[in-house]
């Protein structure tokens, strides 16, 4: 017997669901659908923490993720590095994941390229403004060691230069030497281990950036053991929005005027993207995520409607 429309929807082939999900991601990417982000108080607290530090503060950034979670975590990492460079903080990059070292290189290079276009003539020198001490195996064991003595494990940077030869490493003894720790992590070892073995014993403020799946596991540490958590793309997009509104917008507008491309409307981001290589990956990727969430919600609603219709029919058929 041929199926009616109701049965067709109820027994929908999962390949149709896959098709809708594909379209919900691809179409917003093609047509560049994105929405305004309203930063939440927690994201504002993180921004204020980084922003309130005086220039030259030491910021340790742990890049503990890999290419699998890069699309979700790289936007927030780039936003943080940009913010630190704008504030002229000294950036110390490290990794607890083997591939995190490469993530750090990519992130810092992307941020530096943009800052150099924004502030021509500004020199951002390796060893003075930023350093990458790379990956060490040992998971939380690494944190436990650098808590008391960094040089025990990190005697050289990723290029093999002894840390005593790196100017910005002068005075860095252990975790207590840093003003803030930023942990961008996709799992174990990550932010949780930083709280347990690093930031809490050292008394150094910790900021966490996690995947959306990991974020709920971090909330128990907020606000006493963590300044805040950036959860997934949403958190990254909100942070990007804050950096854009409070730091970059005026600077980029001024630079675009110097380049002979004065912005005609309030939103300078599109012009900055064209002429300064500015990216808002978090905000842009929130478009597809928003549409995909809506598609999932629609499917869940359809699934529940069919469930209740089936249950009512079954009750009617049942002899009383």
């Amino acid at each position, binding site marked *: 017997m041929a199926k009616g429309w109701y049965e067709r929807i109820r027994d929908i082939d999962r390949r149709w669901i896959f098709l809708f999900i594909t379209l919900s991601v691809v179409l917003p990417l093609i047509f560049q659908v994105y929405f305004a982000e309203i930063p939440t108080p927690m994201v504002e607290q993180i921004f204020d923490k980084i922003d309130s530090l005086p220039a030259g503060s030491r910021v340790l950034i742990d890049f503990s993720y890999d290419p699998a979670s890069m699309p979700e975590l790289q936007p927030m990492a780039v936003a943080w590095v940009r913010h630190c460079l704008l504030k002229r903080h000294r950036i110390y990059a490290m990794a607890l994941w083997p591939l995190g070292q490469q993530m750090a290189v990519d992130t810092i290079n992307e941020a530096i390229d943009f800052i150099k276009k924004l502030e021509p003539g500004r020199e951002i020198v390796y060893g003075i403004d930023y350093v990458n001490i790379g990956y060490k195996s040992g998971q939380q064991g690494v944190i436990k*060691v650098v808590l008391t003595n960094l040089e025990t494990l990190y005697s050289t940077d990723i290029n093999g230069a002894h840390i005593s030869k790196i100017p910005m490493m002068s005075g860095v003894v252990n975790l207590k030497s840093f003003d803030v720790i930023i942990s961008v992590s996709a799992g174990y070892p990550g932010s949780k281990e930083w709280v347990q073995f690093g930031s809490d014993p050292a008394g150094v403020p910790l900021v966490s950036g996690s995947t959306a799946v990991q974020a709920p596991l971090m*909330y128990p540490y907020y606000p006493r053991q963590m300044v805040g958590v950036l959860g997934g793309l949403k958190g990254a997009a909100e942070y990007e929005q804050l950096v854009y509104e409070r730091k970059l917008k005026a600077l980029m507008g001024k630079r675009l005027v110097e380049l002979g491309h004065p912005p005609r409307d309030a939103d300078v981001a599109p012009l900055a993207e064209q002429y300064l290589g500015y990216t808002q990956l978090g905000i842009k990727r929130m478009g597809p995520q928003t549409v995909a969430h809506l598609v999932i919600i629609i499917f869940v609603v359809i*699934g529940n409607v069919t469930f209740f219709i089936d249950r009512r029919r079954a009750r009617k058929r049942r002899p009383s």
Partner: protein
Amino acid sequence: MLRRTIPLIITFVVGMVLVISFFIPHKPFGTLGEDFSVFFDIISVFAFVLGGGNLVWIHGDKISKRRPGWGYSAVCLAGFAVTLVVGMLKLGNPWGIQGDVTEAGSMFDSIYMYIFTPLSSTMFALLAYYVASASYRAFRAKNLEATILLVAAFLILLGRTFTGALLTAWLPDSLAFLRIPNLANWVMMTPNLSGQRALMIGISLGIISTSLKLILGIERNYLGADNE
């Protein structure tokens, strides 16, 4: 005798020193605790060699016995061998054998950039399909508990996007707590937080109990079956 006693003594000594060094971080416990942590980091490096050996052993065995899916094992081993050789010999590295293994332009960097990164991202992206399909089939308001879970999921899904703010932006400030992003935040910061903390406390108590059993030699499974 030695095969069982020596590991038990090592476990007891290291375990006790690390516990004591947490509460008394002064000499000699503080220094010993730090030394043991360094030993752990050094030993963990050998896990890479063990992991590589294990990979070759398991997949090599699968290929030699022509077990179902042996072709995938061949691809896995080929990828492992090529990456290892290219990385160790630094093939195509602009600075030769002296250059950094991840130097831009090297073959190792190309494998990482153009094969490993897109493949990893693709695997992660597949999650979206499974989440959508599983949500459609399993997320049903069958009973009270399932309904609560469903409502929470709706609030989080909407609250984590612009749609949530848009749908309830019309609510007056006196009812701001009913706006979807605020409700989503409440779900995360109140019921979720309570549940997570309860779980963490439970897990921590379990870890303490298991650790004490290991340190005191009551739990000996890690020594292997023949050491029971």
